[in-house]
């Protein structure tokens, strides 16, 4: 199975995303922003970072890239796409997911181990979780405040499109504690926190069991393997 990992100029977590894909047992295909060929991948990860410096608006310039255009087309055709942090911002700027992401309420970049509730397990990227499972993965962003107008929020909640919600504390002032979204079809998922930083014991968040041993993020990647096989 082949999973594409996109690199824009300024992408930072592409190596981490590739590592996560490998640990999950899939083959990594590096996708370059300037290409518009998805090389027959079975799924795509848009990793975190500061594509194009996050200038103008996070993800806005990356949303214009040829590879993004190709991904949008394929996503509308059902290709599983995961947007992490800056990747989530790209999905929002490409209107694959609604709303917007703005500067954190406290105005500072924040890096912490963040507790989330998985509110949606029938997507390509969450099917290995249990409904309402509580997970901890790293969060690190300066512009992760989710906003949307009233009716959009109503629709998101009504149609159960909120995939992840912040628990214990809302780190960036996101409306309704929204940490991540899914699309109607469930193939596109975006979130601010970083599952790819919680896939290898020794380098993840602390758990009660042992320091840095958290690997809750791995299920994102094993989920898509299952989804693709069943598809």
């Amino acid at each position, binding site marked *: 199975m082949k999973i594409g990992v996109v690199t824009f100029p300024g992408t930072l977590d592409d190596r981490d995303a590739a590592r996560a894909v490998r640990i999950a047992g899939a083959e990594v295909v590096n996708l370059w922003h300037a290409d518009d060929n998805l090389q027959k991948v079975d799924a795509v990860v848009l990793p975190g970072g500061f594509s194009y410096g996050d200038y103008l608006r996070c993800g*806005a310039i990356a949303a214009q890239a040829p590879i993004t255009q190709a991904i949008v087309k394929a996503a509308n055709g059902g290709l599983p796409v995961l947007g992490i942090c800056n990747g989530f911002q790209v999905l*929002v700027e490409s209107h694959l997911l*609604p709303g917007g992401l703005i500067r*954190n*309420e406290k*105005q500072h970049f924040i890096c912490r181990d963040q507790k989330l509730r998985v509110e949606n397990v029938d997507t390509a990227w969450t099917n290995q979780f249990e409904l309402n499972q509580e997970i901890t993965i790293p969060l690190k962003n300066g512009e992760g*405040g989710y906003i949307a*107008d009233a009716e959009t929020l109503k629709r998101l909640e009504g149609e159960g499109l909120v995939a992840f919600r912040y628990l214990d504390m809302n780190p960036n*002032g996101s409306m309704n504690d929204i940490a991540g979204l899914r699309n109607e079809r469930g193939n596109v998922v975006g979130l601010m926190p970083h599952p790819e930083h919680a896939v290898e014991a020794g380098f993840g968040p602390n758990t009660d069991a042992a320091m840095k041993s958290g690997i809750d993020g791995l299920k994102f990647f094993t989920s898509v393997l299952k989804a693709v096989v069943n598809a």
Partner: protein
Amino acid sequence: MPKIIVEVMPKADLLDPQGKAVANALHRQGYGKIQNVRIGKRIEIHLAAAPTEEDLQGAREIADSFLSNGVIEDVVNIHVED
């Protein structure tokens, strides 16, 4: 050098944490009269020659499609300066 100025502001009914932070700071400094602060962008597009009507048309398109995100922002003003 002639410029097209595009002004973008966060949508009125959406929160603007940056503006809020500044407003609070100003209140702490004693500027009680200030009700609210909102912070947007002022974007200068520099051109070699005075813009033609179609340059302006182009600018309007860029402003809506790229320089602003209609979901969370409004383009409040586009004008020419030189």
